[in-house]
């Protein structure tokens, strides 16, 4: 691990069949903790989740979520497996688990059982709707959670909604809501660990819905202020997604000087110099007209030219990057956002490490996803204690 990694020396055990719990482990791993994924004999379901890397059969999602982790197979349906898990948990700081509540006691990883046997342990439960509350047993996938949090209903906005006003709401790509659950789980685990000297281990209850609701905070606040956001109207009146000759850019001018910079970028067209447009509210009222003109202007321009000159002038403007463009971006390369990791059956690929630097340096990612059970040999042989083996 990198010397700047803040969690060096910590050990985290993760039991994850979904993205949220797995991502919590991934975050703590890249922050320096040793992370051990405990998997059933066939491996976690995440290993079988598309998209796959070419024809390798390797899940890109699993590779990202489990990079850097160890894999330890233990079948929690058996006494031997439960004893093996307990051996690991006895030497760990945090346990992250997304097992459905109804199956936890049988597998020996219910709240009371863990608290009784591992009083030191921070036990982080990660479930779609949490471990407590009227919906604790409900099932949900990513798209359900995105809409249960409100953000799903609010997309698309801007240009996409103008083009397709009659279509259903569209989800955010990938696993946005689930990843919020993962970030919250990592934060909750570390906050509980910070307080460990005072309270010992404890149970941390994370609901992905809660986390996704939290990041949608402003829709809640504005509701309290008397306005209900809707995807048809939740867009700034001008700017937004602008089509160019070779892609799209995003422009958002919240402040007067930024609007003036945009006018400069457009080489001061006569319509934009109308003094009435000095008033930001008036600009908003005339937003549709302004945007039609701005789009007409951008449509024949190249993205790179607009972004370079716009940012120099002080226009908040960005290119809508494809994944390949992000990988090749000189800025991201200079910051070391990606590291080469070895992936069995695929080879070495650039993988995103983490979105933060510590001490002026990126963190390290020294391994790809683990082969199933590769950690088995490192553990001492696990034998069920007689009393437990008897089924007590």
């Amino acid at each position, binding site marked *: 691990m990198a010397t700047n990694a*803040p*969690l*060096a020396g910590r050990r985290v055990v993760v039991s994850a069949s979904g993205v949220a719990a797995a991502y919590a482990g991934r975050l703590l791993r890249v922050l*320096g903790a040793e992370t051990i994924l405990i998997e059933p004999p066939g491996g976690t379901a995440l290993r079988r989740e598309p998209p796959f890397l070419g024809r390798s059969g390797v899940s*890109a999602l699993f590779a990202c979520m489990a990079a850097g982790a160890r894999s330890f197979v233990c079948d929690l349906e058996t006494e031997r497996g439960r004893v093996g898990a307990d051996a690991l948990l006895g030497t760990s700081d945090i346990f992250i688990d997304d097992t459905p509540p109804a199956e936890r006691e049988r597998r020996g990883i219910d709240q009371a059982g863990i608290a009784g046997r591992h009083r030191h342990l921070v036990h982080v439960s990660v479930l779609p*709707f*949490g471990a407590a*509350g009227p*919906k604790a047993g409900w099932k*949900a996938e990513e*798209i359900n959670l995105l*809409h249960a949090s*409100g953000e*799903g*209903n609010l997309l698309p906005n801007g240009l996409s909604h103008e083009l397709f006003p009659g279509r259903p709401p569209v*989800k955010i*790509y990938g696993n*946005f809501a689930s990843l919020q659950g993962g970030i919250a789980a990592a*934060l909750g685990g*570390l*906050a509980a660990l*910070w307080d460990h000297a005072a309270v*010992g281990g*404890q149970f*941390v*209850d994370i609901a992905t819905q*809660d986390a996704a*609701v*939290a*990041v949608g*905070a*402003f829709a*809640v*606040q504005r509701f309290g202020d008397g306005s*209900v956001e809707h995807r048809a*109207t*939740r*867009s700034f009146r001008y700017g937004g*997604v602008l*089509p160019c000759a070779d892609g*799209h850019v*995003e422009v*958002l001018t*919240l402040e007067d000087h930024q609007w003036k910079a945009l006018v400069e970028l457009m080489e001061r067209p006569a319509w934009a110099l109308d003094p009435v447009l000095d008033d930001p509210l008036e*600009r908003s009222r005339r937003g549709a007209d302004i945007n039609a003109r701005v789009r007409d202007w951008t449509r024949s321009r190249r993205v790179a030219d607009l972004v370079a000159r716009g*940012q120099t002038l002080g226009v*908040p403007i*960005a290119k*809508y990057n*494809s*994944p390949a463009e*992000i*990988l090749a971006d000189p800025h*991201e390369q200079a*910051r070391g956002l*990606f590291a080469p990791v070895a992936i069995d059956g695929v080879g070495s690929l650039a*993988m995103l490490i983490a*979105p*933060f630097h510590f001490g*002026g340096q990126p963190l390290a990612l020294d391994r790809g996803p683990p082969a199933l059970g590769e950690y088995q040999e490192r553990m001492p042989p696990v034998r069920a204690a007689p009393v437990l083996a008897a089924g007590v």
Partner: protein
Amino acid sequence: MGRPLAGVRIADFTVHAAGPFCTHMLSQLGAECIKIESAQRPDIFRKPHPVYGRMGPASFDQVASNKLSIRINLKHPKGTALARRLVAVSDIAAESFRPGVLARLGLGYESLRAAKADIILLSVSSSGQSGPDSHFSGYAPLFGAWGGLGTLTGFADGPPVEMRHVMDHTVGLNAALAAVAALHRRRATGEGQHVDVAAREVAASLIGEALLLAAAGGTPSRMGNDHPRMAPHGAYPAKGEDRWITIAVGSDAEWRALAQAIGAPQLARDPRFATEAGRHEHRAELDRIVARWTATLPGDAAMAVLQAAGVPAHVSWTAGDIVADPHLRARRAIVDVDEPDGRRRAAVGVPIRLSKGEAIGIARGTPSLGEHEDYVFGELLGLTRAERRELEDDGVIH
């Protein structure tokens, strides 16, 4: 037993959304968060501004809740000296200026270290503290564009989609995690750190598998509501104006349960839909079938039927639905906050429930500008009334 971050103090120079959301989350976990503004340069979100075509309250109340407020004019040399005194009694200094601004103010990391050797400086910015684009300015929609999340979101035959404040707040949540991690390192080593959170990299971190696919030569692209494996999977019309229900069928068992629940058990025997691959291949047909059923029922009724059958389903909720939800209320994911002016409003809590210690969450509403100067300047920094008056006369506390 107190709240987990009780005893941690944050000198909070952040503005707008991402940085303030970070410190707001930390304050809900128990940190004492002192927000620094001035009358000349209040947080831009403190004042009304044009929101979607109307002049209205911004989004300040949520992220300012729980914080203490003081005024310091950072353009004044005595102001930066006063800020350093505050940092000297803090654990974390948080800021979200453009890279370089803090140093130009005389408050760069080395300067803060001179004031407090083990200070953690948390910097939240658009593109990070280093790299050729570090000077770029940006907001949430730009982060989503740079980081690819906006690029990949949208209909397959349409343009990218603008990410909104959820993008800011995701940056804030990541920053809160990084800050607590840095606290752990300080406890272990005695050393502070400069923590650098780049918003565009947070956006990129949310499409990790797409970036890996691209690294392997693939070309991930917008796919609307499709899922690479599941079908049916999407947002379907419910009875009523602009009401929708989302359904995701992730296994053969859920497919059979869905067929039964919608009163079409014969579908479970249809060979086209017998396997996951078959359902995915025929997803357009399945979407039509499911939509015909969902359109006949209020979303809540369809959701109840499907959840009872073990099929993942949820109504597409608006803010009104969320604020009224008993489950979110029971978990304190949604709470009511009483403002000093007597208003009561709904707010989001911290998305964490702990089994031990004092209840975490929002303890008080939005502070007025400079509301807590008696405590901060008086009790904490030991300034006398006369010293404070002089600083006010000089325009330092202003």
